[in-house]
């Protein structure tokens, strides 16, 4: 009982520290000095650096999705609807979630390892000794960068996934490319539009990676700053950052989907 009690108190304290860190980091977005250069460097690291892995993930996910769904659809002679299925799946769920999971494992772990090793080698103390707030210098730029680049990466993942699905549809299943693309568009159009031109699904598909980006960077920074115990501690923080960010992404995805369905219900 005492162990459960201790675990609960520890978890509650952790959640509180996590929230306080996130709050302070966002507050510093509007406080001088602005570390714009650091933000751009992080955008390059998180965004451009994750591009290959996100592209490959999107491509193969779209391809396997088309292949798997063709088995069921061809039974009813509905191969032509592969575009609808791949488009909806990639934009609503798979693009944002898989891109975010990949970035969590690549960039989230990198953030935790970098800040963790700065912590154990006294570089964070050195920052403080120069009158620099480590949260402003290290956490805020990483969160801002992830908030900006994550939706872009999700769009890339969506686009490449839809393209991958089209490759399979056209070359393996003999579905015409224009029929496939019409299917993708009609699915998007069916969900309705925001401001008359932006498909509703696309809005959801951008909002999710925006939130997930914040989770990835904040979790990486949180575990990095909490690192103790030398190089072994850095390894432990890195693992914890990836596991926690991944679980949070999947859990928050469910609640975000529910919220989006309530706020922006599909038309018809």
């Amino acid at each position, binding site marked *: 009982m005492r162990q459960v009690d201790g675990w609960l108190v520890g978890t509650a304290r952790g959640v509180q520290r996590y929230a306080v860190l996130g709050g302070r980091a966002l507050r510093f977005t509007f406080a001088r000095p602005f570390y714009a250069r650091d933000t751009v460097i992080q955008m390059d690291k998180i965004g451009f650096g994750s591009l290959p892995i996100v592209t490959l993930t999107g491509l193969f996910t779209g391809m396997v999705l088309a292949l798997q769904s063709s088995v069921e659809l061809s039974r009813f002679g509905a191969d032509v609807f592969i575009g609808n299925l791949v488009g909806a799946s990639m934009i609503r769920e798979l693009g944002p979630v898989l891109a975010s999971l990949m970035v969590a494992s690549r960039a989230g772990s990198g953030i935790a390892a*970098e800040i963790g090793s*700065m912590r154990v*080698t006294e*570089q964070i103390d*050195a920052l403080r*000794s120069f009158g620099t*707030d480590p949260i402003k210098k290290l956490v805020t730029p990483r969160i801002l960068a992830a908030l900006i680049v994550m939706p872009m990466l999700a769009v890339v993942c969506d686009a490449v996934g839809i393209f991958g699905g089209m490759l399979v549809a056209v070359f393996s299943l003999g579905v015409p490319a224009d029929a496939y693309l019409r299917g993708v568009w009609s699915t998007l159009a069916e969900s309705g539009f925001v401001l008359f031109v932006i498909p509703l699904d696309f809005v959801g598909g951008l909002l999710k990676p925006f939130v997930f980006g914040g989770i990835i960077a904040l979790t990486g920074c949180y575990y990095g700053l909490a690192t103790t115990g030398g190089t072994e501690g850095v390894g432990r923080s890195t693992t914890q950052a990836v596991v926690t960010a991944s679980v949070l992404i999947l859990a928050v995805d469910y609640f975000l989907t529910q919220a989006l369905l309530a706020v922006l219900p599909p038309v018809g």
Partner: protein
Amino acid sequence: MVTREEHVRAIRDELEEGGGDASGRPEEVIRLEDVSLTFERPVLEGVSLYANRGETLLVVGESGTGKSTILKLILRQLLPDEGHIYVFGREITDLSFDEALDMRRRIGMVFQHAALFDSMSVFENVAYPLRENTDFDEHRIVETVRERLAFVDLDPDQVMRQLPSELSGGMRKRVGIARAIATDPELVLYDEPTSGLDPLTVGTINTLIRKLQRELGVTSILVSHDIRAGFRVASRVNLLRDGKIAFRGTPEEMVAADESYINEFLS
């Protein structure tokens, strides 16, 4: 049995001897009064010390006796459970977060393992405090960085573009000192500046510490377990034992002291 009030008064009287005022006595830069701090066990118990402007104070003791904790308290990275800490004449325990950052800008810190920023070149490391705490233009920053690197006997043209990982231990320490003095701090704190270095490099670092005091009039607090190296630069010594001050005086007085623990420590 000495009461707590008598104990505090005795400390105050003792500290007054080194305190500064308009009567010509040296100005006090640091003062710790009856400072105690406990984590899982007591780290510091009733520690009092002071440092006057321009002097080098050595804090020695075995590993784990709370030496580095004193530096963290002075930087206000830790707060004491009891007691008062004055830096530049101001009590720092009640400073706000931003006031503490401002206070730290007047202090340079040399870390045990230099703590250079891995991702930055030597130039960027030394330029960092200048970019953060001054409004120098790029030309003046370059000039100041070159000057500071030359001060610590490094060739700016050779090392400025190098990464910390490409430097030897002694060079890293010297870059750490150059970075610590980049903004002309009034106080420099050294945390084990000579640990893990060969005797020749220890000599170089000691020469640098003396040079800083002599040429720039910097007040220094040197935390070390290397008493031989410390004696070469310090004007006064405080010996910590189990979180308490076991001896305070000049290096000569410490050598002459007839106490078994001190003799054991010196040997």
